[in-house]
């Protein structure tokens, strides 16, 4: 059976042979498929910063800098770098429903990876600082890259902190995070913590009281 026969053709087009319509549908489908750019365009909205306390700056790819003070909407795009200053926090909502809160002195880049069979995966490259992440409305692929590790998630809530030397601390509030360094991967589950260090596999998950680790994000989320 041809794949095109699975399409339901509208009865409003009775004068065209069904096989011709099927062919046209297949062509339109294929054209649409192949016209998708594998790289997110710089003008494609990735997220909105919706709240900021203190110093929150966005560095665009063309060198322009923009800031958000208090509640509002500051669009963020692929390639943007966002930073919070000392004593500052910010809340970002991605277009696919992922919420990210930045703690003070955080610095990350908004990126994506494209794969032929999977499409786009949103990536946040966290150079330093701390973010709290919660995916909402079903599984959403997201990866947080740090200098020494990567946390990959689909449906979860977690906190990740990067020290200046790259040491990464992952605390999972709910769900499972695939946490890996170049030396091995560890699945980290609800209410556990793991550390990633340069040149080492991530540590085995250890039970932890997650509440104190994510308490900082409560203020900015309100």
């Amino acid at each position, binding site marked *: 059976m041809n794949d095109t026969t699975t399409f339901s053709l509208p009865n409003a087009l009775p004068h065209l042979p069904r096989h011709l319509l099927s062919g046209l549908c297949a062509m339109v489908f294929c054209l649409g498929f192949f016209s998708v*750019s*594998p*790289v997110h365009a710089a003008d494609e909205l990735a997220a909105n910063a919706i709240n900021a306390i203190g110093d929150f700056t966005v560095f665009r790819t063309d060198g322009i800098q923009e800031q958000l003070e208090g509640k509002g909407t500051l669009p963020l795009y692929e390639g943007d770098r966002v930073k919070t200053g000392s004593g500052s926090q910010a809340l970002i909502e991605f277009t696919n429903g992922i919420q990210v809160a930045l703690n003070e002195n955080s610095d990350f880049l908004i*990126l*994506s*990876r*494209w*794969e*032929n*069979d999977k499409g786009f995966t949103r*990536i946040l*490259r966290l150079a330093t600082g701390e973010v709290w992440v919660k995916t909402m409305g079903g599984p959403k692929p997201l*990866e947080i*890259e740090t*200098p*020494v*590790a*990567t946390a*990959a998630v689909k449906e979860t809530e977690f906190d990740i902190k990067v020290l200046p030397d*790259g040491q990464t601390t992952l605390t999972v509030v709910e769900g499972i995070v695939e946490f*890996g*360094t*170049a030396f091995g991967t560890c699945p980290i589950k609800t209410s556990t913590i793991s550390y990633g260090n*340069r*040149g080492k596999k991530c540590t085995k998950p250890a039970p932890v009281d997650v509440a104190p680790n994510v308490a900082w994000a409560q203020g900015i989320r309100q």
Partner: protein
Amino acid sequence: MKDQSRLTSLLFTVMVLLVVAQLTGCLGSTPPPKPEGLNTRVYTANESSNTVTVLDGDTYQVLGDIETLNYGAHDLALSRDGKQLWVTNLANGRVSVIDTESRQTIASIFTGTRAHVVALTNNNKHAWVANIAENTISIIDTSIYRILGTIPVGKGPMGIAFSRDGKLAYVSTQDKMVNVIDTAAHQVIKQIPVGPNPHFLTLGPDGRIWGTNTGSNDIYVIDPGTNEIAETIEVGPAPQQIAFALKGTAGPNAYVTVTGINKVVVVSATSPTLSIREQIDVGEEPNGIWANAVGTRIYVGHTKSNNVMVIDSGTSQVLATLPVGRKPIRVVASR
């Protein structure tokens, strides 16, 4: 009796037809595999056309172009099985992964600003990508295309090569150094001073690390036992890249593209000290160079004339000149 005779005659006819069909290949059976070494694929990274050109390295034919779906294709690394081709894209900092069987880009990964060169670890599990403008190496898992870490190195990483045992990585940087990295710790353990604008690095058949000082006239060889420069030799202005091949019983020799004189300079890699054996005239601005797996053919890319010359290393004669994309910087061939 008559029927039996007819049946025997019919069976005989069918058998004859089957034999003829088998001999002429009409049955559509799988053709016998080619002997090893006769399936050389050559790839060029064409920086100004954002493509990779595929050549048949044995019949000297252009097989087609592959869109990298990125900007500024610069360096190439081919997996040992020849199925994955990794391409850095200098202009937009991404790496393209090409499936060589379907000749399509199957993934695009941002590594860092001005992603310059790429090398696969000896087990092909990781791709190391040098980001010139960020002074880092990105480590990518080659099965899931996920970046698993970055290693800070010196200013402007330009070339990457791994030691034979894979325990050390060598990264040349624009601050006139080669950084030695412990691959088990992802730490720079030593910096070796070299010449101006050190660029290309490769593992030689002698187990030593060979590099070019593109900013001067010489190439150098690092002894991985001491991690010191063992030898240097002047080859001419702006040496670019190095491949190794044989000349009859002589060799392996190092074939160095020297842009400033439009030649490939052949350096003996087996004599006690480095010595120049000959110089081969090639086209304008030779840059990328690679040898086939058996070391009898050299493929030289020219960034000005946008072509690849196939050279017989036995006679040093140019056998073919093949058009490729614009500004072919890098050439690699299947093993």
